[in-house]
């Protein structure tokens, strides 16, 4: 009973308090952050009673506009698939977050609650099984629109996402080999170890630097953002969502931003210690230079959840910076990058990791 209630609360927390607000914030950040780095101010004109809240009201106005805007569907579209696709896209991204741990185990009223919706044995394999559902959403939406540009976008999306799905998986194999598990929770817990007398945390970034360099672009490509925004490529083919408007366009866009949140969460979880705070143990801080602070369990849990969220926000910010700095790839270069550079390197990474593990054993 408690488990069920806790799960429901966790799902609500994740969706209502984490994913949607984060996606919303990312949309806001996309505008304000790009503006600031481009010496602009960004959206700030909408106001309620004179309050502009640094453009947040603009975002709300946008959201309202999205909801009330005419929901147009092209006359020769396959209506059923056309309407279905955006919801599938949203579903696919929301469901993948289930396995990501956003906090440690929390002992509450005698019960131990894992701050993770589902601690599946298959771990992130679950994600790689479900995330490609988004590809169907895009392909279906693009095809159902009955538009040549959309169709091109859909085809690009399928090619790109499926290719990079492989690299995403392979680049994490090294990590799995190091930690010996596919369970995300256990990967995060293991990143609480330290090297060199506790000076350096055993984060994935230090264990698998090449893995990070491979996972980062591959994951980025999965979010379909510049420089990997070929399915959209608004100056070339306008994109798979060309015919979508109103709420359904909003769903596509939202799913894209949630994908960014997920990418941030994965980067955090795999390479940056998940909810771990350096030198924070279950009873408090133990710094290698000898300082100790003991903290109550709840405070530690909250700090660790905060740590997870902070890392998430940082990666959100960083992904935006990268997105607004770079030009876009060309389709053949993108595919070549995947199959000729990233994939062999990922295999190499697995081999090297294996050798290193063998040597260390």
């Amino acid at each position, binding site marked *: 009973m408690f488990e069920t209630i806790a799960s429901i609360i966790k799902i609500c927390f994740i969706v209502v308090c984490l994913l949607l607000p984060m996606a919303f914030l990312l949309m806001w950040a996309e505008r304000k952050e*790009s503006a600031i*780095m*481009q*010496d*602009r101010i960004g959206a700030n004109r909408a106001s309620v009673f004179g309050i502009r809240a640094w453009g947040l009201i603009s975002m709300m106005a946008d959201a309202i506009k999205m909801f009330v805007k005419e929901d147009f569907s092209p006359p020769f579209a396959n209506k059923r698939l056309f309407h279905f696709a955006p919801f599938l896209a949203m579903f696919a991204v929301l469901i993948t977050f289930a396995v990501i741990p956003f906090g440690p185990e929390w002992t509450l009223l005698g019960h131990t609650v894992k701050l993770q919706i589902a601690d599946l044995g298959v771990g992130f394999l679950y994600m790689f099984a479900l995330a490609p559902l988004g590809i169907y959403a895009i392909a279906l939406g693009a095809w159902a629109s009955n538009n*040549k*540009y959309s169709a*091109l976008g859909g*085809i*690009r999306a399928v090619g790109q996402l499926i290719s990079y799905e492989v690299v995403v998986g392979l680049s994490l194999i090294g990590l799995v080999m190091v930690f010996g598990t596919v369970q995300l929770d256990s990967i995060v817990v293991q990143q609480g170890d330290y090297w060199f007398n506790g000076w350096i945390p055993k984060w994935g970034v230090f264990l698998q630097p090449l893995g990070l360099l491979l996972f980062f672009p591959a994951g980025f490509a999965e979010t379909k953002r*510049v*420089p990997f*925004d*070929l399915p959209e*490529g*608004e*100056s*070339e*083919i*306008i994109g798979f969502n060309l015919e979508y408007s109103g709420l359904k366009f909003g769903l596509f866009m939202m799913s894209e931003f949630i994908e960014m949140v997920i990418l941030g969460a994965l980067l955090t979880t795999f390479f940056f210690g998940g909810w771990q705070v350096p030198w924070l143990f279950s009873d408090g801080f133990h710094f290698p230079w000898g300082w100790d602070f003991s903290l109550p369990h709840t405070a530690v849990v909250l700090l660790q959840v905060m740590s997870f969220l902070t890392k998430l926000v940082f990666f959100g910010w960083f992904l935006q910076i990268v997105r*607004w*700095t*770079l*030009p*876009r*790839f*060309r*389709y*053949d*270069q993108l595919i*070549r990058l995947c199959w000729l550079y990233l994939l062999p390197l990922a295999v190499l990474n697995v081999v090297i990791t294996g050798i290193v593990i063998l040597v260390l054993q």
Partner: protein
Amino acid sequence: MSEERYIPRNDLNIETMQINLGPSHPTTHGIIQMDLQVAGEDIIEADVIIGYLHRGFEKMCEAHNWNQAVIYTDRLNYVSPLINNVGYHLAVEKLMDIEVPSRGQYVRMVLSEIMRICDHQTALAAAAMELGGFTPFLYLMKGRELWWELLERVVGARVTTSFTRIGGMVADLPDWFAAAAEDILLETANINREVHTLLTRNRIFIDRTRGVGYISPEDAISYGFTGPMLRSCGIEYDVRVAAPYLAYNDIDFEIPILTNCDVYDRFYIRLLEIDQSCRIIKQGLAKLPQGPVNHLDKNISLPPKSEVYGSIEGLMAHFKLLMNDNGVRPEAGEVYHAIEAANGELGYYLVSTGELCPHKCRVRPTCMPFTQALPQMIKQGMIADVVPCFGSINMIGGELDR
């Protein structure tokens, strides 16, 4: 840098798809249509359809007198209108066999070079943005904005400058101009550095542009390329050197040549030319001679306002120039005069029959040959290559369709 691209084999009997890129498409800044036959992402056939912005510029000039026609030249290459003004009036002056005083020549040269910077910055910005680089776009636009802020204070308008007149300019440069330009030159160089960092040293950008839109030097010549497009094919031709006009002979500057004939070089050469234009502006302002900017003949340029308001002679000369049946009438004859506009050789062919209005005013648009060569450039590539190719030719609808 980039490997051999997969080229679709004809024996596969690929069914092609027709795609109309334009007339209103984000890539086609300006209205132009590209009719593409694609197999997948590869372009098999390409055709460029122009004429969506045809306003009858040349015909309209025939209904306006020699000075009034200058407002139409603003609307040719609306990114660097002042160069068009200068070119037009240099042609008229050649027809009339007069020359503006040397200060006027320097002022025209400096303003032309400022416009060249603005044009290059806009072209680069648009090209960068279409490749997805929105940030360099805004940095470059910021750079252009500084120049426009300055020009607005001198010329009185940002786009529709209409600043030259037969025998001179509407006004002289103010005395604070050099100091203000100095600061903006620094900022321009700084923005150039930023663009180098963001784009020209970035592998993604290099991949997107290197080897793309190749056109051989022979083809470039036979299409009639001029300007940065031609010089990026390794051919040394610049009107400023081949047939010096204004004060370019007194200025020490380089004309960059690149030899790879691709989009990267067209992009890069514009950045280099911005630097050279900065040099010209600096030297021009330093050497700016004293004296009048306008030709002093009362039958050519308007008398000073003090004379118009204060003496019957000035008033009559003023009326004589402005009344319909009077005004400037070049002697019957024809002339072709070309200048180095931002995009290449901008030529005006004028025929006078001794009337008040040009009998014929024909423009050699700079971007017309580039647009003609566009199908050849994009036929080798993919849909995504249309974007940098199109960006690199810097097509300006106003000038192309006239």
